[in-house]
């Protein structure tokens, strides 16, 4: 009797292992496709969706680009999934590539939907494509054949990322839709002539809409301002070129009357690479200061004109401007902001040679 009871109890315990598998309407991994890149364009109210799918075929990876259309993004993906023999699972989408036209019309609703449904990870990167998505994917596909993660590696910090590329994730775009003081910059790419992808600058996104564009070298300053490391980028001037090895940022903000004033200093540590003529260290420092300050002012003028605060300058006025007025930061205060930029350069060393 006792033994039988024990056996029954043991069997009950064993059945407990069943729910451990967590399988419920589960689709096996070989019946799923896990796209890495999701491309979205919109024309006349219809969304077109492109998925880059990597398929392992006998010791190499084949790249498939599939596309579908529908009245919403999920509708389009659902129709795609219906027509494919596998289930489309967006869990591993790393890059959301948006058509430029779509970005200029405004993408806030799509971004909000991404955040609501947790299919697409909020940390997927957002990029804008400067050419038609079908022709972009067509050209890039060739480069992808050799290495399936090329688009992804392009933005990955421990792979092909450069300080001239802004990195913006879905949640940051979402934040810019709601935030009073923070906008974002999204990298713009197109297919290159000799390389698979060409980076041609950043799009300035204000409240989920693309309003302006800045160049790669301006993006570098934007990254430096936001405290991203610009280590490894090279600046070329008339008399020298230098390699930036470190950067720090210091800001002081003040408010006189209704006008916000800001003093910013970027401190660079550089290493001398090439020289032309016989420049002194002093000359190189001055030249670098002039070059970068001018470039920064040009960029700042551009973004100030469209009232997009990608530098997050409003953040520095949180303790000065009360919250209710901060809601009008972009319209009221930001266009009047006076920003004074300084570049302090420290030439860390000049290589094996002495400079005059």
């Amino acid at each position, binding site marked *: 009797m006792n033994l039988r009871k024990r056996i029954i109890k043991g069997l009950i315990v064993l059945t407990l292992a069943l729910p451990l598998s967590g399988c419920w309407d589960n689709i096996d991994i070989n019946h799923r496709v896990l796209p890495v890149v999701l491309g979205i364009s919109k024309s006349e109210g219809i969304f077109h969706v492109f998925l880059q799918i990597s398929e392992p075929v006998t010791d190499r990876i084949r790249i498939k680009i599939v596309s579908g259309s529908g009245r919403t993004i999920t509708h389009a993906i659902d129709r795609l999934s219906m027509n494919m023999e596998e289930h489309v699972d967006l869990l591993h989408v790393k890059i959301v590539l948006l058509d430029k036209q779509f970005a200029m019309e405004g993408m806030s609703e799509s971004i909000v939907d991404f955040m609501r449904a*947790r299919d697409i990870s909020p940390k997927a990167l957002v990029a804008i494509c400067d050419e038609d998505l079908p022709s972009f994917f067509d050209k890039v596909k060739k480069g992808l054949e050799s290495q399936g993660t090329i688009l992804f590696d392009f933005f990955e910090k421990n792979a092909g990322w450069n300080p001239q590329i802004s990195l913006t994730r879905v949640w940051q775009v979402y*934040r810019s839709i709601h935030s*009073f003081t923070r906008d974002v910059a999204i990298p713009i790419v197109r297919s290159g002539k000799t390389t698979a992808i060409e980076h041609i600058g950043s799009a300035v996104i204000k409240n989920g809409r693309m309003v302006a564009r800045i160049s790669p070298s301006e993006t570098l300053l934007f990254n430096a301002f936001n405290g991203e490391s610009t280590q490894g980028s090279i600046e070329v001037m008339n008399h020298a070129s230098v390699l930036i090895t470190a950067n720090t940022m210091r800001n002081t903000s003040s408010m006189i009357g209704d006008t916000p004033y800001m003093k910013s200093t970027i401190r660079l540590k550089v290493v001398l690479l090439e020289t032309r003529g016989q420049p002194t260290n002093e000359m190189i420092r001055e030249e670098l200061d002039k070059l970068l300050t001018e470039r920064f002012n040009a960029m700042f003028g551009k973004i100030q004109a469209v009232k997009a605060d990608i530098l997050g300058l409003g953040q520095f006025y*949180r303790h000065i401007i009360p919250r209710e007025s901060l809601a009008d930061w972009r319209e009221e205060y930001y266009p009047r902001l006076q920003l004074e930029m300084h570049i302090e350069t420290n030439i860390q060393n000049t290589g094996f040679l002495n400079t005059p």
Partner: protein
Amino acid sequence: MDKSLHVGLTFFLTQLGIIFFIYPEHIIASSSEGHWLPILAGAAANLIVMAVYMKGLGYFSNQDIISIYTNVGKSAAVLFLVPVIFYLYMVNVIAVRAFAEIITIVFLSNTPIWAVTGLLLFISTYIAANGIASIFRTGVLLAILFLPSIGFILTISFQNVDWHYILPLIEKRFEFLTSISYMKSFYVFATSFLFLGFVQPEITYSSKKLLLAALSLIPFLLLAVYIPVLTFGRSTASTFKFPFVMLVGTIHVNWLMFDRVTLFLLLSLITFTMLFIALLIWQMSRMISRPLPKVKPVYLLLFISAVTYIGCIMIPNWQDVEELFICNMVLRIYVWLIIPFSIYFLGLREKRKRSYEPT
């Protein structure tokens, strides 16, 4: 037997399990800036209530709160304990249902609610069936297993913070005092501490150490609210249902082989919540078994879980969970304030009585 560590740890974990979900949402909604003030005010109130409760219980060192009330009189027991049973039942239903929904929202989107609810309740009932000692032992085990991963996630969750969002520090109008969301946020304090009255005389604990456990929760309360606020900003964070869960979804760690850290946080917290649910079921069974001494406690437990399960299934959607949450508010304030203070005054009376009677 002095088990301060076990009791304190279990108290700590059951609280930790619930603060990372709805609490940040309520606090962020209650005030537009300077969130530390409502958090600290709530925590201070909680410390006072707990101190009063334990002081009161200290006067009856060999009775649990059921005996305390029954000794005063049958009507007193009914008056005080029936609302508590009701309250715990509602908390239990809300907790199980809310967590089942969270699991569905975050990762098991295909699994039906009834299956998730069933699993949650089944495990908790099993823990509760083995008695309070096993609940405490499970608590220690869970702490060893999962607290390190919680600590790790909390450390890396600072990845995207922008410290400017901490300003302005002071909100001068004290708008949180009149906000319903703030009243709702007290749910984190109002339940866990009750079990302290059920464990004696079998298990004793030092009230100082318990207060220390409550005190050590304050940093976690601050983190749960402030990390989302510092990352997203108040105006964005207030659009999220579970700000902290969302925040963990944004963490990007290159060298970590797991893509979604959220799962680790969530699964750790869910084990803590199972402990919480087990405690609730156990307390209810203790209260119901007193007038029904002939029924085996295990059957009572099964009955309570079955009723809870039915309650959970009856709630069709998230909005109803929130409505139930608001309905529960009156009972919550009753349990949170009346029970500790009544115990305290009964304790004072007991002490006076004792000093008159020659021993």
